[in-house]
């Protein structure tokens, strides 16, 4: 069993929550990636949550890139299973299985929140 990841914010850091609720355009995904790159040097913690059709972006290399830049990428496991993504051998592509409760925590714990619907 994987140990729960520490969700406490670093002292002095700001936190940006990003919700992806549906399929997004390349321009939007590139912007999310760019924000993660910028966040790395500006002491901003980014938390991305994929839900609805947004879970299809799990296999998008830009999500892996965002995670490499320090973003924490989580997704609604129910939505992923509903869409058969768990049948892919690469599932979950390095992201964390999660729930709507975690999204509620992201919303409450973020200093700013982007909802990409």
């Amino acid at each position, binding site marked *: 069993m994987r140990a729960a990841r520490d969700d406490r914010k670093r002292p002095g850091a700001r936190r940006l929550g990003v919700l992806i609720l549906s399929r*997004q*355009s390349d321009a*939007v995904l590139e912007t999310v990636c*760019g924000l993660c790159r910028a966040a790395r040097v500006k002491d901003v913690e980014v938390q991305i949550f994929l839900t*609805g059709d947004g879970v299809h972006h799990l296999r998008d290399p830009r999500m892996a890139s965002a995670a490499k830049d320090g973003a924490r990428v989580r997704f609604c496991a129910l939505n992923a299973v509903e869409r058969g993504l768990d049948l892919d051998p690469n599932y979950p592509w390095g992201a964390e299985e999660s729930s709507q409760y975690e999204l*509620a925590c992201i919303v409450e714990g973020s200093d700013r929140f982007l*909802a990409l619907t």
Partner: protein
Amino acid sequence: MVAARKTVAVVIGCSPWEDHRASEAMRMALGLTLRNPEVHLFLLERAVTGLERRQAEGASGADFVRHLISFLELGCPVIVEEEALNTVAGFALDNRIQIWRRDAIVRFVSRCQAVVLLRHRISDGGRAGSSKGKRDPDAVAAGDEENGGCQIHGEDGLPRILDLLLRTPSDLFRIVLRGRAKDSSSATVVLNRSGPALGAQLHGFLLHSGGEDPALRPADAHRGIGHGELLDLIFEHDTVFCW
């Protein structure tokens, strides 16, 4: 010590019978109440059709209604737009649902700390998802697709709102901007290459996210911004509306 709860608004402007995102958003709104029982749900425009008496007309709409009923049973505030109610007949209006005028909704949402905005989708003419779109005459007139124009307006003490325009703006966007013009200070960022058609009705403020490539940065009076500056803008404002 318990941190103060945020004021969270979930604003749905699309029909749950036509767009499955509405039921996803409704389920998400339910989930948000796990940390915040004061999540406000607003049904605007076509979303009010979710209150119509319909029989098994698609799983998505049925799920929406089921989640909406649960939301009401939790005692969470549900507000419908009065103007939208006038356009659709045959409602089953629960007496727990509040009816507000559009301008009151705009004022309230402008002061929320987190806003999930689900508007009616407008076709981007196939440009969404592609990094190579046709140049939009309106966008060119306002600046350039990959360059941009910038003006931030407003007064001190008012909520600072950043509108992040991801695709072609809807009527709802214009309505909200008009409605909050005097109550907030706002800036608009338009993602480059998504090419939304913008006109002068947007109070003339407009920024393009110009990417990190200096070659994309304009040399004229309009200004493109990179991701770092966009991130700064996000934190300089109180709330970000993604359209």
